[in-house]
């Protein structure tokens, strides 16, 4: 019996370690090869505190957890601006450094590690035997798993996945990716540190080999094996890998010496086979047990309104009234100059090397006006949007939003202040559902903030309902309610553009910058989209549109700027601009 408890203990420790690593890799897309080393910080801290300071079991666990969390947060700081491949190198280096320090520091016991840890005990009860340790470990693991589940399967986890999919797009809908990265590193590290401390107490020593790079790679393998970004995947992956070696040793009657080698071969082969057959791991991210049951022809408990089934057909019927004659003209009557400018740009300049992309631009986006930005390819329109939304810093000039100088602010801060943008190349979160894409844009969601997520579950679920309603509303605006449950990556390009508009609407921003919202959208929807945009000023929105489809722009824009070679060279209504032969020549060539 003790033997089984021993294996169960190892399984639990590795399950929680790989769950915490999955938060990093599978959800936030932050690949770390230092996870075992971080666990080692917890392990060594607990060992040192227990041996040198005679600290009790529980307080040393708490301190070890906190120290690992701090180390994780510290590690995340250089990671903030790194791309994935650099992050891998950084964490690998960090792991090697940590193990080397442990190996060569006298006070940490060098290669032999810290030995002679006391038998852990809680409420005077000894946890010396595997079976005694098991129940305590089970409780701790259950708490960790609950926390993991609460984080992963929540608005918070949704933001993490958005981070993984497209950091810039996540910032564009107002998510402060830095805060999330630091948090997720600290959280995952805390869990790892706790498990490292328990692992040390279980073996009653903390030594470098327990926490070296091979162990980190093993953890990564467990996560991949089970399925990255899936709730249960790492549990299965870790359990299978830990259990496989005793099973192989017991059942293959070939001696430990050969079994150890065969096990490595079996791991390798299994990983290769898995990559071929189930590239997303044993339990892929969007695996649903209900669907799997359905495929097997088994009855579903409470089947029915599963995600995104029947909803009104999007096509002709829904769009009917104004099409195809065109959704009417902009209000000829409005006095543009009388409207307050919401966004004012003065002397904005940006050069890339020798090319001056934006060269002293002045413009104003006025309240509840749709402003068009026209000009030949390469005129600097997208660069202007990037400057306005803080994606790139300007070389000179100022940008004011509602009177506040926002020059040099971060994209997410600008988005939270009420100016959001869509991208020419769409930038949806492809491995998330359409509904999730739009729900992400819902601002001030308490469930996206750790303390509120954990402390105010009711407010969170209320907000989640509101976010869902809002998202569905925005999706029905663009006629894609029936695709709500689909992965965004499965949509056609035109559909993705529409979802992007829905996402932009859901941000609730007052100033919307649309980069080619219509190109790639089919003609039937062109009018629909134009109608949607046309309706925005009535809702108090200020809009700026870059678009080459002049037919559509003509229906949309109250006012247009003509941009060429980085400068604004004309402004007025589209008709006025297109009446100027010079502009026609610049734009239409001939």
């Amino acid at each position: 019996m003790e033997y089984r408890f021993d294996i169960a203990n190892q399984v639990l420790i590795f399950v929680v370690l790989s769950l915490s690593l999955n938060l990093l890799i599978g959800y936030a897309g932050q690949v770390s090869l230092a996870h075992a080393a971080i666990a080692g910080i917890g392990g060594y801290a607990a060992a040192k505190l227990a041996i040198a300071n005679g600290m009790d079991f529980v307080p040393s666990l708490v301190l070890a957890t906190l120290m690992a969390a701090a180390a994780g947060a510290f590690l995340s700081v250089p990671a903030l601006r790194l791309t994935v491949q650099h992050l891998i190198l950084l964490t690998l280096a960090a792991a090697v450094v940590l193990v080397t320090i442990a190996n060569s520091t006298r006070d940490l016991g060098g290669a032999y590690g810290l030995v002679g840890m006391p038998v852990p005990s809680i409420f005077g009860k000894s946890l010396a035997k595997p079976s005694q340790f098991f129940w305590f470990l089970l409780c701790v693991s259950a708490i960790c798993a609950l926390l993991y589940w609460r984080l992963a399967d929540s608005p918070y986890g949704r933001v993490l996945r958005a981070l993984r999919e497209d950091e810039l797009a996540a910032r564009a809908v107002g998510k402060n990716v830095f805060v999330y990265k630091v948090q997720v590193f600290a959280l995952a590290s805390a869990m790892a540190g706790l498990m490292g401390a328990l692992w040390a107490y279980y073996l009653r020593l903390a030594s470098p080999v327990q926490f070296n790079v091979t162990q980190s790679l093993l953890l990564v393998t467990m996560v991949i094996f089970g399925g990255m970004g899936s709730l249960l995947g790492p549990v299965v992956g870790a359990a299978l890998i830990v259990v496989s070696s005793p099973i192989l040793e017991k059942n293959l009657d070939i001696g430990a010496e050969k079994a150890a080698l065969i096990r490595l071969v079996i791991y390798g082969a299994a990983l290769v086979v898995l990559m071929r057959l189930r590239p997303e791991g044993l339990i892929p991210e969007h695996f649903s047990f209900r669907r799997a049951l359905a495929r097997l022809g088994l009855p579903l408990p409470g089947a029915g309104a599963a995600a995104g089934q029947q909803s009104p057909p999007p096509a002709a019927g829904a769009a009917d009234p104004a099409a195809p004659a065109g959704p009417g003209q902009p209000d000829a009557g409005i006095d543009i100059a009388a409207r307050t400018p919401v966004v004012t740009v003065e002397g904005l300049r940006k050069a890339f090397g020798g090319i001056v992309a934006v060269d002293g631009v002045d413009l104003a986006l006025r309240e509840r006006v749709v402003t068009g930005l026209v000009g030949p390819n390469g005129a600097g329109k997208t660069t202007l949007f990037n400057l306005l939304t803080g994606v790139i810093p300007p070389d000179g000039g100022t940008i004011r939003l509602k009177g506040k100088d926002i020059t040099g602010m971060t994209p997410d801060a600008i988005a939270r202040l009420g100016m959001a943008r869509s991208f020419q190349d769409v930038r949806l979160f492809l491995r998330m559902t359409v509904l999730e894409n739009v729900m992400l844009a819902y601002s001030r969601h308490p469930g996206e903030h750790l303390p509120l997520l954990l402390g105010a579950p009711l407010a969170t679920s209320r907000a989640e309902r509101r976010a869902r309603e809002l998202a569905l509303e925005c999706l029905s605006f663009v006629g894609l309610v029936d695709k709500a449950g689909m992965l965004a990556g499965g949509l056609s390009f035109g559909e993705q553009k529409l979802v992007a508009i829905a996402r932009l609407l859901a941000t609730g921003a007052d100033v919307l910058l649309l980069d080619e919202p219509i190109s790639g959208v089919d003609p039937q929807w062109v009018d629909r989209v134009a109608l949607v945009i046309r309706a925005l000023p009535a809702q108090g929105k200020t809009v700026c549109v870059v678009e080459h489809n002049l037919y559509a722009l003509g229906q949309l824009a109250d006012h247009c700027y003509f941009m060429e070679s980085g400068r604004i060279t004309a402004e007025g209504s589209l008709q006025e601009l297109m009446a100027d032969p010079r502009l026609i020549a610049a734009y239409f060539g001939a």
Partner: protein
Amino acid sequence: MNDEKGYWDRFFERRLSRRHLMRLGALGAAGLAAGAYLACGGEEGTPATGTPAPRAGAVDLSKLNEWVGPGGPQAGQGQTIKLGVILALTGPGSYYGQIMTKGTDLGVEHVRAAGGPNFQVIYKDHKSGDVTAGATAARELVNDGVQIILSSYGAVLGSILPVIQPAKVLALDGGGGTSQIWKRQDYFWGTRAVIPDDTFNGVAQYIRRKLPNARRIASVGWDVGPANDPVIAYLKQVLAANNMELVAEERVQIGATDYSTTLARVRGTNPDVILTGLWGLDPGYFMKQYVTSGMRAQVVGAEFTPDACQVAGAAYDQYWFAFDYFDLEKPFNPWSKLFIDAFRQKYNQDPDFYAANFYEKVFIVWELVRRVLSRNQPITGENLQNALKQNPTFKSLYGGDANNVGTITFDLEEHDVDKLQVIGKVSGCKPRVVAKMNRERLLEVLD
């Protein structure tokens, strides 16, 4: 002009998705597989066990009882006793694991033939120093009801002790011995000299005799953290007593293959002799690079194994070694000769010091079993240890003479043994004993 991100940034953002991570995982698996390959590589040094079944009767076992004591039911004949063995079966140290396995198996065979108990050996792998594997192995053995464990590797011992001590299971280590840090541990006894400490007196005296001008001694040893400290302190003390001084103390990573920076630093101190505390293949790599360094100091290592010599090649001809070497050329005593013959016959290869130690340990265990049974006590770790404490002297393959087998005696305080040790030289990967010594002094100089 939308270069807000570089191409590679975009590339990785978009493409470094699951599939790439899978590749990363595969890399990890490849790493593990490479480890496995290394483990296989260790076998090359030792000719395969492809000989036909042992020719029974070819080795005369009839004298065995005369040397090591009587067999029969009162000595455990007919009883099955579990014997746990935790070795480096895989990984870079798998040479040790294999040679120790062979010594153990032969010992078990001979004990049975001499009318002793039937030892049921349960082998466990500590993967060449993985403490997790070591602790797990120990726990599994304890859970299996094993009362006696033979182990190797000092680093692993730290993970085994917390398991065996509360369970009161006796452990003997003939691989690394107690070294300095594992002395005086309840239920743990080392059956090998304290290495390299126990060679220091003899080596210093031998150097004084053979290299009278040598004053400056350098030390290059495995970095095992704080465990180095008492060793170095003792070395300084011994050197001072012999009018020598320690001019360099270099620590290197276990398993290192590149010693260029170490050698450069050592050269700066201009030593006359370099003592190395390196094991496994490491002294082979060290010597290979040392001979090209231009230094003329004499290297005295802490071990000789044929596979390290294969790494070094001709460079090993300049290598001296000092440890509790098991002499194949001139067997210490008749039992040693029998062991060598039987080993060669069974495995078609030469035994080494490690094989001899593990063979010998099986006989120590048998002696303990015999004593416990003679008192009608059950075979438990506690009873076995008490039997050891009551009379710490055992028959040994080491020492003795042409007619008498040798003995070893455990130090009841320190839990270690003072074993016969030798200084040796190498030519063409053939080792040759040039001096014998014990922990205190040089006993005999042959060359």
